[in-house]
């Protein structure tokens, strides 16, 4: 029972019933009051006027005249409808429709509500007692029994309405409670299953689109996100374990071998240097992961400023151009002019740098890499890096942005498989998207920043003083060179 009282639906239906009753009473009360006042006032007015008229008859025509008048009136009407009586000073009946002067009428003239014997049964009536000259007494009155009936009907009706309201309310409450409880229980069971560890469960939804359904959809969306995150974490943990295990295994065997063989000093130092390089690789992976974690939390948004994407990309191209020259790759830059996005300059530079670095890594000697910044007609800003290298198969494309994923082509190249993940995380942080498309041949990677991420017409905050003209084409022509590194 306590559970029933605690339940929300019980409280709700009880509240509705109480509210309904209050509304009914509020509706009936003024009606009742108005009726009472109007009917009673009207009644007493009529009685007083009647008494007044009869008094006038008495004054004009005396006892005999009034007696004749009353007898005529009594003969014309139904006995119960009206009370009319003339009596002498000792209250003996002279005329009227009452057999004798009623005992219950008070001595003083005035308006009273009394119980009289009418047609053999006590009846509530309203009367006016008037004192006529020479001690005669006049009684004019009306039986209110039919109004009493009406009153009774009124109260019965009101009570009935309350009863029906209560019954329907309770029944409705119980039914609603059962319906809602059933749905809530199914939600509860799903959530319990999820708590136990099976994340594949989803809340049952209907097509109704009601509140519970909306809630279920929202919760399902949240579960999708959580599942994705957990899978992501699981994948990343596996990848970390794998990717860190490799350099750690190398490091361990290197040190163990050193300890066992105790080679000459020169060789020992070489091995120690190699061991430090192994550790540096591990640290590098950690740093990349920490940066990704930092980006994922979205904390960096607090430090957003206006960044000139054009300038940022031009600088990245300039930074990587010597590396391109060495590989005999043409690295070019094209832009439609200055475009601003609100963002973190360091992260954006790192993202563009990663894309150029990737392209240079895979494009092969004699290839070309083209970096483009353009402000699109739909208001979005696009930074793209395209190469004419081997490209990525369509089936591989979704995988390469996964953390630690390394395509077959990347197996022998330096890197930890976090480059594109970082680019994607940076794009996401800035409300943008990352698109990988075919460049026929090669790969084109686009970072697209939606118009919301871009604020135009503001002064540019740029960290360096390199000015680019409106349409920059800084093609770095390469000459085969063998620079000493």
């Amino acid at each position, binding site marked *: 029972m306590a559970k029933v009282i605690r339940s929300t639906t019980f409280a709700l239906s009880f509240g509705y019933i109480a509210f309904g009753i209050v509304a009914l009473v509020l509706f009936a009360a003024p009606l009742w009051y108005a009726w009472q006042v109007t009917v009673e006032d009207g009644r007493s007015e009529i009685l007083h006027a009647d008494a007044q008229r009869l008094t006038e008859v008495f004054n004009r025509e005396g006892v005999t005249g009034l007696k004749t008048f009353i007898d005529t009136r009594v003969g014309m009407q139904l006995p119960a409808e009206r009370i009319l009586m003339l009596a002498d000073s000792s209250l003996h009946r002279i005329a009227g429709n009452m057999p004798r002067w009623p005992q219950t009428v008070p001595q003083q003239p005035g308006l009273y509500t009394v119980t009289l014997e009418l047609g053999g049964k006590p009846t509530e009536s309203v009367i006016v007692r008037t004192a006529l000259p020479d001690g005669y007494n006049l009684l004019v009155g009306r039986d209110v029994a039919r109004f009493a009936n009406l009153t009774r009907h009124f109260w019965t009706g009101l009570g009935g309405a309350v009863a029906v309201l209560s019954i329907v309310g309770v029944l409705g409450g119980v039914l609603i409670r059962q319906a809602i409880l059933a749905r809530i229980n199914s939600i509860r069971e799903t959530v319990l299953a999820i708590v136990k560890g099976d994340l594949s469960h989803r809340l049952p939804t209907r097509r109704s689109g009601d509140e519970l359904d909306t809630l279920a959809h929202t919760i399902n969306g949240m579960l999708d996100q959580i599942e994705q995150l957990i899978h992501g974490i699981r994948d990343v943990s596996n990848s970390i374990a794998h990717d860190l295990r490799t350099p750690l295994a190398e490091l361990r065997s290197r040190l163990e071998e050193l300890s066992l063989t105790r080679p000459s000093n020169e060789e020992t130092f070489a091995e120690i*240097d190699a061991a*430090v390089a192994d*550790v*540096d690789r591990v*640290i*590098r992976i950690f*740093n*990349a992961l*920490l*940066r990704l974690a*930092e980006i994922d939390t979205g*904390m*960096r948004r*607090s*430090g957003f400023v206006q960044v000139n994407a054009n300038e940022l990309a031009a*600088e990245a191209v*300039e*930074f*990587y151009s*010597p*590396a391109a*020259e*060495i590989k005999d790759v043409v690295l070019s830059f094209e832009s439609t002019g200055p475009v601003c996005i609100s963002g973190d300059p*360091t*992260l954006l*530079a*790192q993202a563009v*740098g*990663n894309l150029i*670095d990737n392209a*240079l*890594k895979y494009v092969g000697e004699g290839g070309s890499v083209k970096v483009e910044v353009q402000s699109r007609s739909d208001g979005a800003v696009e930074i793209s890096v395209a190469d004419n290298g081997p490209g990525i198969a369509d089936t591989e494309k979704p995988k390469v942005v996964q953390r630690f994923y390394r395509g077959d082509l990347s197996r022998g190249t*330096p*890197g930890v498989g976090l*480059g594109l993940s970082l680019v994607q995380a940076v794009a996401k942080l800035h409300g943008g998207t990352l698109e990988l498309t075919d460049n026929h041949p090669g790969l084109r990677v686009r970072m697209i920043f939606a118009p919301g991420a871009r604020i135009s017409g503001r002064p540019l905050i740029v*960290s*360096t003083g*390199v000015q680019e003209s409106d349409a920059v084409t800084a093609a770095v022509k390469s000459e085969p060179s063998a*620079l*000493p*590194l």
Partner: protein
Amino acid sequence: MKLLLVEDNERVTRFVVKGLQEAGHTVDNADNGREGMFLAASEPYDVIIMDRMLPGQVDGLSIIETLRQSGNRTPILILSALSDVDERIKGLKSGGDDYLTKPFAFGELLARLDALSRRSQGSGTQTVLEVGDLKVDLLSRKAVRGERSIALQPREFKLLEYLMRHAGQVVTRTMLLENVWDYHFDPQTNVVDVHISKLRQKIDADFERPLLRTVRNAGYMLSADG
């Protein structure tokens, strides 16, 4: 140089103190905030190396803030495992002059200490820098070696200027990235090395005595006696 190391990890302390002493520096060390605060306030140091998280209620940043409020201008290098950009900004805002995250390479620490001590000596208003027979005019933005003028791209000029300002000191790749390109991230590949070799091609290729040399496991150094 006379240096103060405030660091609670014994192993790191031993490693750093030994390395710095071998590099010819005098090192005092404190393993808690209170002692570090006392030493930093009472002794004159060239550079203070400060760990952020320290035992004994007083943390690194509050020591730095207190020192700065009392008018102490000793250069401070913050050493911390907190690597977020926000943390770095917090460290520099509190009054630190440089921020190095753990784990670090000893060469990096040494190079940054050198750069910090040089900065405090103040050589800011020079308009012509000279190393051996290489001259750089910062106003006309021209570089001349011997009798020959060297054509440099703007970024190459900036790179050379930074190296010349730190002539005789080891400059690491990270320092170059941060100060010449303003890049505070790891660009994955050895792009800095490529820039250096391009510069070297221009300033050293046709001369008998190279000025710019590579320091193993650390970075680069520009010096007349290279």
